[in-house]
């Protein structure tokens, strides 16, 4: 599912690479980065652990941390990888 709400300039978007990490470290890394951001800022999270595609957005919503903007699968990868875009609340 792709839901596009709004984006800033690409250069303003924070990126974190948490490939290789599993839950709950996927959320831990996402959370500590979100804590350093301002409301409205965008973060792209690169990950390869499928359960996190559900867990991170749910935890972000429950804790009123961030809103899911989009999840895109990165094409042409042997192992599935995704970019999850979140907007800090």
């Amino acid at each position: 599912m792709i839901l596009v709400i709004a984006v800033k300039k690409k250069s303003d978007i924070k990126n974190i690479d948490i490939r290789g990490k599993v839950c709950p470290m996927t959320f831990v890394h996402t959370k500590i980065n979100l804590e350093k951001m301002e409301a409205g800022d965008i973060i792209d999270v690169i990950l390869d652990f499928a359960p996190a595609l559900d867990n991170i957005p749910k935890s972000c919503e429950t804790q009123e941390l961030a809103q899911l903007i989009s999840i895109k699968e990165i094409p042409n990868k042997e192992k599935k990888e995704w970019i999850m875009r979140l907007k800090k609340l």
Partner: protein
Amino acid sequence: MDLSEEQLIRYSRQIILKEVGGIGQSKLLESRITLIGLGALGSPAAYYLTAAGIGNLKIIDFDVVDLSNLHRQILHFTNDLGQTKTSSALRKLSELNPDCNIELVKDRITAKNSKELLKDSDFVIEGSDNIATKMLVNDTCSYMNIPFVIAGVLRFQGQIITVIPEEKTACYRCVFGDVSGVDNSMSCSQAGVIGLIPAILGSLEASEAIKYLLNIGDLLINQILYIDLSQNRFDSIKVVRNNNCLACGDNKEDLANKLNYDIGDSCEEKI
């Protein structure tokens, strides 16, 4: 404060809590707690404070480990008999979490040294085994505006109160008044105590400290939480600050400078 990857993993299960996060964890790592007593109350408190990542822990105890301690003072083991409680604690706590800087004070807290020992504390946990020390800590912290918690146990019962002087909450002296001359002989060594009650009360003391540092939840202020394990009672008894209290009232005094707290030897027999 940036957390290392190892710290993120170590504290991950509390970082993911809404109330903690990386910000809260950093606060804990930068905090300074003073713990009086490494006995039955201090043991679980020390364990949980260290495990949670309190960055600076000052522990005060003058005593040595005795065989009769081991059923409840779980910080100390059979191999520690005869060792000072401070050195016994240091070994275990350092191994549990090297993030925690532990300062040992192998001494008794008295009216002469209480201000020096307790200054620079973000929070004080009182875990001694006698009412005179509890009142001294109450009076010193109230005068110096240091938040603190006091607990006491006997048999199957225990009680706990948290005091935040700057918020003018009721203090130990508001509740118990002048305790000079109180018979201290009815202590754990005379009446007995089940190890589980200080386990709970000591853990609650650590919980109060962490909640205060993180500014989360509700503190046990303006109340005595009374627990009776044998009857499964967990009662909150409302208490009201005495505006004329000499320790915490509108005209509070430096009582540690005036009173004789009669802090003598513990009545427990030493083998």
